[in-house]
C-alpha cells in the first residue's frame, strides 16, 4: 500500500476514534458529572443542555458508523489487493466480514452501534428511564472501544502478549474517551447554566468542573500508564523513537498530549477556583474564559486522535528499520576501560550532588536563586562528561537490524561477494593487504582485528552502502543489492569470529563469545530444528567426518553413550557435504545437516577456509546460547578430551559481547 493510502486509512481511523470516544465520553459525563449534580425538575436551561447532548450523541454515532463503513471498504481494498471497484464486491466484503478477526470486531461494533441508536432513541422519549439508559450507554459505548482494541497493533502479537496488550489498548481508549469525549458536554453544561438564574446558586458550574477534574485525573493516569506500556512494546527504544515515522508520530502525539495536560491544569487551577468568587461579574469572566479554554482543548484533543489514527495504520517502530538522525550514539563499550569507568562513576556522583543542590535551592526561600543556579550548572557539567566519554560516531543505519540473521546461507553468499568485490583492497584474507592497498591514502581496515566485532551490524552496513567518511572506501549501494550488503556484513563477522576462534584466550583472559552461523538439521524422529530456534538446552556437537561407516557408528555410539549417562549434554549433528553417498543411511540414525552453504560457512573456521574438504574429521561445539566455543579433531583417541570439553562448556556460559556489536542473529 502506498503512503497516501496509509494516510487516508489513518485519517479514517482517527475520525472513527473521534466518533466513538465522543459517544463514550457523553455517557460517562452524564453518569459521573451531570446526573449527580443537576436537579431532576425540568427547566428551560436543562432542556437546552439535554437537547444539545442528545444532538452531539447522534452526531458522534453517525460519524462513527460512516467512518466504520469507510474503514471497511479501505480494508477490503488493502486485504484483497484488488482495485477498489472489484474489492467492494459482496464476495470480498463478505470474506472480510466473516473470515477475518477484523471483520468479527467490525460486526461486533456495528451491533453495539445499532443498540446505541436504540438507546438514544429511547432516551428522548422515556424520561423516567434515563439513569438506566445512561448506564447501559456507558457499557455499550465502552464495549465498542474494547472491540476497537482488537484491531489495533496489539492484535498481531503472540497469544500471551496479545491478551495483555489488547487490555492495555482498551484501557487507553476508555481513558481517552472518558476525558476528551466529556469535554464538549462540559462546555454545554457551562453554557446552559450560565444565564439561568435559578441554577446559579451554589456555583453549579464550579462543582461540575471539580467533578470533571476527578474524572480527568483517573482518565489521564490510565492514558499515561497504558501509553508507556505501548511505547515500550511498539517503539522499542531511542532509535525507534527518533528514527522511524512511527516514533516521530509518537513524539508529536506526546507533545500534543502535554499541551492537553497544560490546558487541563490551567482550567483546574486557574479558572475553576474563580467560578466560586463572590462577585457575579468575576464569575462571569471565569466562566467565559473556561469555555474558550475547553474549546481549544477539544480541538487539540481531536488533533491527538487524528495522530493516533495515523499511528494505527503505520507499522510499529519495532518492525521498521530506524533511520538514525544523529551523528553520535551512546555506547557502554568504553566502560570496559577502568579509567573511563571511574570517570563516569565520579561524574554520576557529581550529578547526583548537583540534583540535590538544585532541589535544596528550590526548597530554600532565601538562597533559591543562587543554589538553584549552582545546582543546575553542577548537574549539567557532570552529566555532559559521561555523555562525551560514552558517545561514539553513529550513522543513519547504525540501528538497523540485519534481515539475513547470520545463517550459513548468508555467510556463504557474503563470502562469494567478498571474493568478487572486496579482496582488491582488503586482501584475500581480509587483513587489509590487497594489491590496491598500497596506493590508497588510508590503509584498508584489517577485518580480522578484534575491534571489528564491537561495531553494530548497522555501522558495517553503512560503510559498505555509502563508503567511509574519509572517502577511501567507495559506496557499494549501486554495485551490490541491499540483501547482498547484509550478507557481506555476516561474512565479515564470520571471518572475524574465525580469526578469534583461532587465537585461544591467554591465561587469565576471558573466553570470547563468537556467534555460530545458524543452520537447520533434521533428526530421525522427523523433527526439524535450527541452531537458535528453539534455543537448545544442550551443546550442539556438529561433526564432519570422513570415517567409513562402521568406525563412524562406533564413534557416534560413544558420543551418544556419554550423553545417555547424563554427564555430557550434547546433540550430535552430522554435517555432511552434498552428495554424500552415505547420506540416506545416516539420516535414519543421526541428526543430519547438509548443504553446500553449511560446508562453505563452517570451512571458514578451519585452517583451510576456502576448501570444504578441510572439514573432514572436525567437530564444532556450539553452546546453548549459540556461541561457537570450540573446533577440534574428531578422533577416537580424543573422545575423553572431547567429552571433558563439552562438560566444561555446559558448565560455563559466556556473557554476550558488550560493544553492541554482533550479539544476536535475529
Amino acid at each position, binding site marked *: *500500500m502506498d503512503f497516501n493510502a*496509509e494516510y487516508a486509512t489513518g485519517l479514517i481511523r482517527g475520525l472513527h476514534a473521534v466518533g466513538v470516544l465522543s459517544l463514550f465520553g457523553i455517557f460517562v459525563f452524564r453518569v459521573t458529572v451531570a446526573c449527580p449534580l443537576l436537579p431532576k425538575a425540568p427547566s428551560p436551561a436543562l432542556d437546552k443542555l439535554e437537547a444539545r447532548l442528545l444532538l452531539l450523541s447522534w452526531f458522534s454515532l453517525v460519524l462513527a458508523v460512516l467512518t466504520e463503513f469507510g474503514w471497511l471498504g479501505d*480494508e477490503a481494498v*488493502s*486485504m*484483497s*489487493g484488488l482495485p477498489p471497484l472489484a474489492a467492494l464486491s459482496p464476495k470480498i466484503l463478505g*470474506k*472480510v466480514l466473516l*473470515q*477475518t*478477526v*477484523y471483520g468479527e470486531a467490525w460486526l461486533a461494533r456495528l451491533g453495539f452501534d445499532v443498540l446505541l441508536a436504540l438507546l438514544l432513541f429511547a432516551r428522548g422519549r422515556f424520561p423516567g428511564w434515563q439513569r438506566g439508559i445512561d448506564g447501559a450507554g456507558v457499557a455499550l459505548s465502552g464495549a465498542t472501544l474494547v472491540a476497537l482494541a482488537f*484491531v*489495533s*497493533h*496489539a*492484535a*498481531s502479537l503472540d497469544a500471551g502478549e496479545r491478551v495483555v496488550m489488547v487490555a492495555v489498548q482498551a484501557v487507553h481508549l476508555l481513558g481517552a474517551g472518558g476525558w476528551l469525549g466529556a469535554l464538549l458536554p462540559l462546555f454545554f453544561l457551562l453554557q446552559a447554566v450560565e444565564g439561568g438564574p435559578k441554577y446559579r446558586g451554589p456555583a453549579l458550574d464550579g462543582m461540575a468542573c471539580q467533578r470533571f477534574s476527578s474524572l480527568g485525573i483517573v482518565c489521564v493516569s490510565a492514558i499515561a500508564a497504558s501509553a508507556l506500556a505501548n511505547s515500550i512494546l511498539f517503539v522499542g527504544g531511542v532509535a525507534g523513537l527518533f528514527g*522511524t515515522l512511527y516514533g516521530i508520530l509518537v513524539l508529536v502525539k506526546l507533545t500534543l498530549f502535554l499541551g492537553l495536560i497544560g490546558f487541563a491544569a490551567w482550567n483546574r487551577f486557574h479558572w475553576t477556583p474563580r467560578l466560586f468568587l463572590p462577585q457575579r461579574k468575576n464569575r462571569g469572566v471565569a466562566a467565559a474564559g473556561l469555555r474558550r479554554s475547553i474549546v481549544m482543548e477539544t480541538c487539540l484533543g481531536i488533533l491527538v486522535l487524528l495522530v493516533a489514527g495515523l499511528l494505527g495504520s503505520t*507499522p510499529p517502530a519495532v*518492525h*521498521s*528499520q530506524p*533511520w538514525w538522525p544523529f551523528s553520535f550514539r551512546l555506547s557502554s563499550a568504553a566502560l570496559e576501560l577502568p579509567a573511563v569507568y571511574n570517570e563516569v562513576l565520579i561524574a554520576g556522583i557529581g550529578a547526583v550532588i548537583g540534583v540535590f543542590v538544585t532541589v535544596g535551592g528550590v526548597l530554600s526561600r532565601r538562597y533559591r536563586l543562587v543554589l538553584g543556579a549552582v545546582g543546575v550548572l553542577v548537574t549539567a557539567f557532570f552529566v555532559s562528561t559521561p555523555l562525551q566519554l560514552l558517545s561514539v560516531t553513529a550513522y*543513519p*543505519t547504525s540501528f*538497523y537490524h540485519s*534481515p539475513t540473521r547470520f545463517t550459513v*546461507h548468508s555467510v556463504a553468499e557474503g563470502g562469494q561477494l567478498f571474493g568478487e568485490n572486496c579482496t582488491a583492497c582488503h586482501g584475500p584474507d581480509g587483513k587489509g593487504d590487497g594489491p590496491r592497498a598500497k596506493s590508497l591514502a588510508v590503509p584498508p581496515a584489517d577485518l580480522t582485528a578484534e575491534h571489528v566485532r564491537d561495531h553494530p551490524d548497522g555501522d558495517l552496513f553503512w560503510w559498505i*552502502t*555509502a*563508503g567511509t567518511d574519509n*572517502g577511501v572506501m*567507495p*559506496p557499494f*549501494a549501486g554495485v551490490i543489492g*541491499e540483501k547482498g550488503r547484509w550478507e557481506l556484513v555476516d561474512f565479515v563477522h564470520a571471518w572475524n569470529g574465525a580469526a578469534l576462534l583461532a587465537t585461544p584466550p591467554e591465561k587469565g583472559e576471558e573466553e570470547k563469545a563468537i556467534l555460530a552461523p545458524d543452520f*537447520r538439521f533434521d533428526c530421525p524422529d522427523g523433527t*526439524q530444528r*535450527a541452531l537458535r530456534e528453539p534455543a537448545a538446552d544442550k551443546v550442539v556437537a556438529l561433526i564432519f567426518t570422513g570415517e567409513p561407516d562402521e568406525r563412524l557408528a562406533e564413534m557416534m555410539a560413544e558420543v551418544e553413550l556419554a550423553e545417555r549417562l547424563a554427564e555430557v549434554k550434547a546433540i550430535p549433528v552430522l554435517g555432511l557435504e*552434498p552428495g554424500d553417498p552415505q547420506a540416506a543411511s545416516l539420516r535414519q540414525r543421526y541428526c543430519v545437516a547438509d*548443504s*553446500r552453504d553449511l560446508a562453505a560457512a563452517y570451512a571458514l573456521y578451519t585452517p583451510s577456509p576456502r576448501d570444504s574438504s578441510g572439514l573432514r574429521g572436525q567437530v564444532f561445539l556450539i553452546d546453548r546460547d549459540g556461541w561457537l566455543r570450540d573446533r577440534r579433531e574428531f578422533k577416537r583417541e580424543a573422545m575423553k578430551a572431547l567429552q571433558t570439553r563439552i562438560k566444561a562448556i555446559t558448565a560455563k556460559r559466556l556473557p554476550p559481547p558488550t560493544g553492541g556489536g554482533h550479539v544476536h542473529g535475529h
Partner: protein
Amino acid sequence: MMKPRSKFLVAFAACGLFAQGASAHAFLDHASPAVGSSLPKPPAVIRIWFTQELEPAFSTIEVTDQAGKRVDADDVKVDGADRTQLYETLKPLPPGTYKVSWRVVSVDTHATQGTFSFDIGP
C-alpha cells in the same frame, strides 16, 4: 573524496530503498524448501512460516516453474495449530528452478508480499 552533496544523495537513495521493506508487517520467517535451496528430491508440500499470525482468507502461495506455469495444487491453508504457518501441496515436480510468490494478510490487517526460488536438481 566524496562530496557532501553526493553523500547526501546516496543516503537519500538508500532511504528510498529501505522504505519498502520497512512498511511490511508479516515477514517471511523461514520456508521449507528453504529460500534459495537446492533439493535432491521434489517436495510434496511447501510450507512458509511468517513472523505474525495470518488471515487464511487473504493469504496465498503461488509456485510456478520456469515457463511461468503454476505447479501448486491451489489448496493453500493456514496451519490450525500454528497460525503463522502457511502450506500448500505441490504437483510432482521435475528438476528445475521454481519461483514461489506469496501474499499474506496478518491478523492486524496489513498485507505483505514477496518471492523466492528453490531448485530441484538431479
